[in-house]
Every structure is written in structure tokens, then in C-alpha cells.
């Protein structure tokens, strides 16, 4: 290529975008030296590039919402079941939680020792559970698809459970009943950002209604479902993101099963006194409907 050869606009773009080899780069540099107008074009495009990068520079620095962090994990295993977190309380630790709840409900003043004691027991339980988790996942996992054990922050499950315990058994469990679905959906859509009301009838759960509840970081939604076979169940959801990495494996109160997952940028918890397979079916159904 001779130095005097014609330079067209695509060469200038190629120059800005690093598409040219060394020889052509030199050719364009020479050209720009003698053609101020083209040099101004190139300079303008570079400024555009810089403005674009600056406008979105913050995005890459933001912590990834955990919904996206787990997405790459759950997706490898396809079914939601494997990305889902099973938390079932073992009997040995049930006592300490019961104790905590007792100390919570009876409003006697000297509560601190009880709380400290139950925290200590919880911590011990967490260590045992952690060790068990390691023991189980260590040698057993290799044959399966790559799958990281996703341990959720305790805050979310604790919130969902508290919301469940507060409202599900209450005289007035929901603010808006299932007979006003449109209104309920709009309300939760506006406040929580998630407007869908998953139909879990396939798992034997019938929607009673829902309400707004305080979440870990933002307003959360709580949908209550009635079950013919057991007590009521609840689907809790809150916009995912920003939670700290969990300190301990999740746990639920005795008799309660909880399934936790993330989809569409939201964290979901299905909680209730459900049999394992019912909870699993219901959460898979809800998860599928959440991303449709």
C-alpha cells in the first residue's frame, strides 16, 4: 500500500477502533497530519467513545446483584431444583429456636441472657450444619454437573419467616384478597416491582391474597396460599441485590420448609409447613411463572 493511496472514511473508523495493522496505522497517521478535517472527525469519535465509556463506567463497578451471580450457576443445571436452597430445620436445633421464640413472645424484661444463649446455640448449630454441608458436598458432588452450593444470606430467609409467622396465621393474613387480583398485582408491582401472582394450584396451593411487608433492604411482597393438606404457605419476594454474603447456612423453624431462589432480579422464598415434595413442586412452578 503506497503512502499516497486514498483514505476513505472506513479507514478512519478502523484507525479509531484499532482494526488496522501497523503499516496502515502509519498511513492514516500521516494522512491525519495533513488533513485537519479528518483529524477532527477522528478526535470527535474518540470523544464519543470516551463519553460512552464514562456514562456506563459505574455499572461495572457496582456489585453484581446476587440474582445474576447465581444465574450462571443455576443455569448450568437447568432445573430450578438444583439452584434452589433447601432449608429444613433439624430437630437438634429446633429447641433453641423455640426458646428464642418463647423469649420473644413472653415480654419479660431479662431477655438478654436468653438471646445470647440462643445465639450461641444457633452459632453452634451453624457450625455443625456447615461441617455437615462440607462433608456431604465434598466427595459426593463430582459426578453431577458443576454446581456451587449457594448459601443465601440469613437476612432474607429470616425476614420471610418472620413475615410468614406474623401474617399467615393471623385473623387477617392479607391486605388485599385474591378476589381483587388486579388491584393486588398493581400494588405489589408499584411498591415491590414484581407484579405477578404465581398460580400454584398445581401444587395444591390456592391464593388467598397478599400484602406489602418490610424486606431486608426494600419493601417486599408476601402472597399467602391456602393448602387443603397443611397450614397456609407464603411466597415472599424482594428485589435481589446488595445482600451481604451469608455468614451461616439458612435455617427455618421446626415444621417449616423453605425454598429460596432467584429469578428475574428478585429473591423468592416459599415457606410453609409443607411436605418436601409439595414445597419443591410449588417453588418450581412459581419460579417458572416468575420468569415467563
Amino acid at each position: 500500500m503506497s503512502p499516497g493511496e486514498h483514505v476513505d472514511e472506513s479507514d478512519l473508523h478502523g484507525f479509531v477502533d484499532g482494526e488496522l495493522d501497523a503499516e496502515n496505522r502509519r498511513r492514516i497517521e500521516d494522512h491525519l497530519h495533513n488533513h485537519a478535517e479528518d483529524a477532527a472527525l477522528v478526535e470527535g469519535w474518540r470523544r464519543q467513545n470516551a463519553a460512552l465509556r464514562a456514562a456506563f463506567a459505574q455499572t461495572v463497578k457496582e456489585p453484581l446483584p446476587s440474582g445474576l451471580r447465581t444465574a450462571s450457576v443455576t443455569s448450568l443445571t437447568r432445573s430450578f431444583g438444583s439452584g434452589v436452597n433447601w432449608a429444613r430445620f433439624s430437630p437438634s436445633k429446633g429447641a433453641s429456636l423455640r426458646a428464642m421464640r418463647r423469649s420473644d413472645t413472653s415480654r419479660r424484661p431479662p431477655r438478654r441472657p436468653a438471646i445470647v444463649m440462643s445465639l450461641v446455640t444457633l452459632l453452634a448449630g451453624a457450625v455443625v450444619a456447615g461441617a455437615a454441608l462440607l462433608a456431604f458436598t465434598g466427595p459426593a458432588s463430582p459426578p453431577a454437573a458443576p454446581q456451587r452450593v449457594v448459601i443465601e444470606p440469613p437476612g432474607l430467609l429470616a425476614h420471610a419467616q418472620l413475615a410468614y409467622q406474623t401474617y399467615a396465621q393471623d385473623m387477617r393474613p392479607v391486605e388485599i384478597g385474591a378476589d381483587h387480583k388486579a388491584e393486588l398485582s398493581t400494588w405489589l408491582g408499584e411498591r415491590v416491582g414484581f407484579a405477578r401472582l404465581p398460580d400454584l394450584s398445581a401444587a395444591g396451593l390456592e391464593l388467598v391474597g397478599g400484602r406489602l411487608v418490610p424486606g431486608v433492604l426494600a419493601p417486599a411482597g408476601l402472597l399467602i396460599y391456602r393448602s387443603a393438606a397443611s397450614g397456609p404457605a407464603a411466597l415472599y419476594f424482594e428485589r435481589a441485590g446488595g445482600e451481604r454474603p451469608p455468614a451461616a447456612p439458612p435455617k427455618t423453624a421446626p415444621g417449616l420448609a423453605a425454598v429460596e431462589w432467584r429469578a428475574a432480579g428478585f429473591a423468592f422464598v416459599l415457606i410453609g409447613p409443607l411436605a418436601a415434595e409439595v414445597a419443591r413442586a410449588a417453588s418450581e412452578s412459581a419460579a417458572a411463572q416468575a420468569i415467563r
Partner: protein
Amino acid sequence: MGQAEDFEETLERLTPGLRRYARALLCGAANDLADELVQTALQTTADEARHDAPGAVLDIRVDLYASLTHAAQRRLRSAAPHRPSLRQPAIMHRLADLPFEERETLLLVALEGFTYEEVARIARTDRPVALMRLMRARSALTALDRHPSPGADAGRRSGPHLRVVK
């Protein structure tokens, strides 16, 4: 097993950039939708990679961005156009004025640093078409630079003072 682990880590490493691209593609106007698209793309790419024979994935990054681009295109076809809010920088407003294909091409080159060849593969077209789109996008932005629309102008003026605190 080891390879699969690498693959998963690759996806994780690419996610922040993919997220930036998704947001830019939606002109910073629908970050929730952007994250949803990112998740869809991650899922699709992971699924495809799992079904393909090992080693069939030539370039995960191209596949990932292609998957996101097509998901975005599908979604934007059925949805009302997203307009950036006035507090967004002027460049977002100018991006929003571009046709989807030109915006996609400009962002892939300028923001994500893909080669023209890769952009053509992502956009399912050839290099000359990709280059043409890039040239049109840049000249449209330059023209808008000279004659900014009122919205872009207001955005520019309020830009430095207002900041979305998250």
C-alpha cells in the same frame, strides 16, 4: 469437570461487562429489564454450551453478547421504546435516538471493544454491513452533537448536578 468450572468462571467474569452493554442498549432507561436480559443471556449461553460437545464453544464472549442482543431485540420489538430520564447524561439521549442496529454496533465497538468481525457475528451480518452501521451511528451522534435535541440539552445541563443515589 475442570473445563466446566472454567466455563462457569468465564461467565462470571464476563457478567459485569455484559450488564453494562445491556444497560447501554436500553439507554440506561430500564435497568431491571437489562438485568433480566443478562440473566436470560447467561442462561441461554450456558444451556447451549452444555448441549454442544466440549470445545464446540469457540468464543463464549461472542455467544453471550449475541444471545443478549437478540433477547433485547425481541423484547424491544414488543415494548414501548425506553426513554432515558432527563437526569441521564446527554449521550444516553443521543443513543436512544439511534435505530437498534446502529446502537448495538456502536456499543459493541466503542463500549465493549469487539472487533468488526466479532460485531458482524454477534449481529448475524457481515463485516461491511457492521461497518456501515457503525459509520451511520457515529455520524448521527456527531450531527446530534451539533444540533442537540431539547431533551438531550436539558439532560446535559442537569447532568452534573443530579445524581441517582443508589
